[in-house]
C-alpha cells in the first residue's frame, strides 16, 4: 500500500467515509454547477448538503463524451447561462461559508482544467474548499502532472474504474488515487442503462481489496430502490442524472427547481441510509 495516498489527519472526504462507513453507505449526489443558472445551483448545493453525505459538482464542458443526454443538456444549460470555471469555484467558496463538513468533489473533463492550468486549478479549488477531483477523460497514463498538482494542494484525485478494467490495468487505476474509487457500474454513458446490484458486488470487493479505499458506485442508479440495493454492497451510492432530470423537468414546467430536486434527494438519501438496517 506504499502507493496509496493519504493526507495527515485525512481530508474532509476521507473523514466522511471513516465517520459513516461502519454502519452505512454514503449518499453521493451530483449536480452540474450553473444548471440552470449559478444562483439556483448554489441554492441546490446548500440544500443538498441536508441530504447528501458527499456532493459531486459537475464542471460544465462543451463536449462531455461520457455523458448521456441528461447531463449533456445540463452542461449546455450551464454554458448557455455563461458559467465559467471561476464561477464553479465561486459557488464552492460561498458554500463553505456556511458548511465546513460536506465534502465537495469536482467532476468534469480535462480541457477546461488544462486551460486553467493544473497548479492554479488545484490551488484555487482547494482554496475555495473543494476536496476532490474526478476527470473523466484523464486516464492514469496521462495523469501525472495533474496528480502532482492535486497532491501538492492536498486534494483527493478520485479515479474511475469500470467493468472493462481488467486485472492487468487495476494496479495502474488504483495507483495515486485517493479518497475513494468511483466504480462505473455499466459500460456506457451516464444515466442511460441501469445498474445491477448483484453484478456490482464482485467488482466492488475487488476494488476495495486492490485499493484499500472505499468504493462508490454510480452511472446507472435512478430510483430509491436501486440506490438501496447498491448501498448494501458499496461504500457510496452516486446519483446524478436522476437529480438533474428533476432540474430539467421543473424548469420546463415552471415549478420550483430546488424543491423538486431536494425532495428527490431526500427520498434517495433515506433509501441509502436505511438500506443496511437489519442486514449488518
Amino acid at each position, binding site marked *: 500500500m506504499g502507493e496509496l495516498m493519504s493526507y495527515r489527519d485525512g481530508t474532509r472526504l476521507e473523514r466522511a467515509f471513516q465517520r459513516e462507513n461502519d454502519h452505512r453507505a454514503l449518499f453521493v449526489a451530483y449536480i452540474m454547477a450553473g444548471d440552470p443558472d449559478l444562483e439556483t445551483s448554489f441554492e441546490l448545493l446548500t440544500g443538498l448538503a441536508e441530504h447528501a453525505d458527499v456532493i459531486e459538482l459537475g464542471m460544465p464542458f462543451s463536449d462531455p463524451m461520457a455523458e448521456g443526454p441528461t447531463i449533456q443538456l445540463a452542461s449546455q444549460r450551464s454554458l448557455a447561462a455563461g458559467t465559467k470555471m471561476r464561477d464553479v469555484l465561486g459557488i464552492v467558496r460561498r458554500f463553505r461559508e456556511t458548511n465546513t463538513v460536506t465534502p465537495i468533489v469536482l467532476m468534469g473533463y480535462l480541457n*477546461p482544467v488544462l*486551460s*486553467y492550468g493544473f497548479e492554479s486549478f488545484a490551488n484555487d479549488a482547494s482554496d475555495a474548499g473543494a476536496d476532490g477531483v474526478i476527470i473523466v*477523460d484523464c486516464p492514469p497514463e*496521462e495523469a501525472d502532472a495533474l496528480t502532482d498538482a492535486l497532491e501538492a494542494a492536498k486534494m483527493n484525485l478520485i*479515479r474511475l474504474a469500470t467493468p*472493462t478494467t481488467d486485472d492487468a490495468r487495476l494496479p495502474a487505476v488504483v495507483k495515486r488515487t485517493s479518497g475513494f474509487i468511483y466504480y*462505473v457500474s455499466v459500460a456506457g454513458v451516464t444515466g442511460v442503462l441501469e445498474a445491477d446490484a448483484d453484478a456490482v458486488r464482485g467488482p466492488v470487493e475487488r476494488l476495495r481489496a486492490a485499493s484499500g479505499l472505499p468504493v462508490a458506485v454510480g452511472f446507472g442508479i435512478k430510483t430509491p430502490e436501486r440506490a438501496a440495493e447498491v448501498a448494501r454492497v458499496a461504500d457510496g451510492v452516486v446519483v446524478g442524472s436522476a437529480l438533474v432530470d428533476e432540474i430539467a423537468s421543473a424548469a420546463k414546467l415552471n415549478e420550483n427547481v430546488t424543491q423538486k430536486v431536494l425532495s428527490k434527494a431526500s427520498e434517495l438519501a433515506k433509501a441509502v441510509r436505511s438500506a443496511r438496517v437489519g442486514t449488518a
Partner: protein
Amino acid sequence: MNAPVSPTERPNDWSAYPDAKGRFGGYGGLYVAETLMPLVLELDRAYTEAKNDPAFQKELRGYLTHYVGRPSPLYFAERLSKHLGGAKIYFKREELNHTGAHKINNCMGQILLAQRMGKTRIIAETGAGQHGVASATVTARFGLPCVVYMGAVDVARQKPNVFRMNLLGAEVRPVTSGAATLKDAMNEAMRDWVTNVADTYYMIGTAAGPHPYPAMVRDFQAVIGSETREQIQELEGRLPDAVVACVGGGSNAIGMFHPFLADESVKIYGVEASGHGLDTDKHAASLTGGRPGVLHGNKTYLLQDDDGQILDAHSISAGLDYPGIGPEHSFLHDIGRAQYLTCTDDEALKAFQLCAELEGIIPALESAHALAKLPQLAKEIGEGGVIVLCLSGRGDKDIFTVADALGRTI
C-alpha cells in the same frame, strides 16, 4: 508563415513518432474514459501485430489494387500550371479512388483489422460524408453492420452522401447535440463505443483521436505519399520541391506528407480552412487560430475559448469543419517541418471553379482549399520547380453547396 527551424532541431528518424505513449512531441496521447482504455490498448496491440504481419499487408495491397483502384495517377495539370505561371503542378488523383476520395485507403485497412480482431459491428463518424460512404462501402463489402454518426447540419448539406450510405446498407444517425457537425458526431460515436465495448469497432476517419488512431490512419494513408514519391521520380527524375494538401483532421495531408518528412528539400504545406476569415469567429483553422488542448482522445491544437470550452468551427466544406487537427500536424507545425496556410470559403469557391474549367476536374471543396494556394506557391517555387497537390476527393457531393453559394438553383 512560420520561422524556419534549423534541421538540427528536427528528428533524425521520423518513423520514431509516435513514441510508446502515442505522443508526437507534446501532442497525441490517450485521453479517453477508463471504459475505453482497455479497448484502445487492445487496438494498439492488434494494429502493431497486423502492421508487422506480411499476410495482412499483402491482403491490404490486394484490396487496394483491385477494389480501390490503386495506384492513383499522378497527373500533370498542364493548363492550370500554364495559367498560374511558375512551377509545374501535379495532382495526386485520390478523387479517382473507389468512392471518390482518399478516405477508403484508411477504411480498407481498418476493416481488415476489425475482422482480424473479431469485431462484428462497425461505427464511424463523418463530416462531409466521404468517410461515412467509405465506411459504408467496406462494411457492405465485408458484410458487417455499420452505424454512421453525422451531425444533423451535415446531414442536411450532404444529402447525396447520406443517400449513398443508405444504399450501401449503413444506418445514418443524425446528431443534434452541440453545433450538430463533425465534432458532435465524434462525441456521439465515442458514446456508442463506450456502450458497446464487446462487439464494436470504431472506425475513425481522420488521423486524430486516441493512440493508435493518429499513427494507424497515417500509415494507411501514407500510400498516397509513397506512390507520389515513386511516380514523380519516374516523371520528373527527382523529388518535388513542394507537396500541398488541405487539412481538416488532416488524414490526406499526413498521408501525403509523411513519406517526404525526411527529404529536407521538399517543402510541405498544409492548408487550413479559414471560413469567413481568421478575424471572425467563423473559421476552422486550429493551428493558425487555436491553441493546444485535449479533445477526442488526443492533445492537439484546438479552437477553444479562454475557459477551455471547445468552439464551433466553420467552413463551407463539411470535411474541414472541425475545431481540432491530427496531433502529428501540431507537432510538424511546432517544429516547423510543415507550414500551414489558410484559405477562406471564397478563395476555395474560386479555386473550385478554376479547377473545373481549366482541368475538367470538379474537386471536393476540401481539396479546393489546397488548390486555392497554388497561385502563391507556384510563384514562390517558381519556374522549373515541381509541386504535387493532393486532390483528395471529387466534388460531386458539393455541387448543391457550391450552387447555393453562387446564388444558383439546381
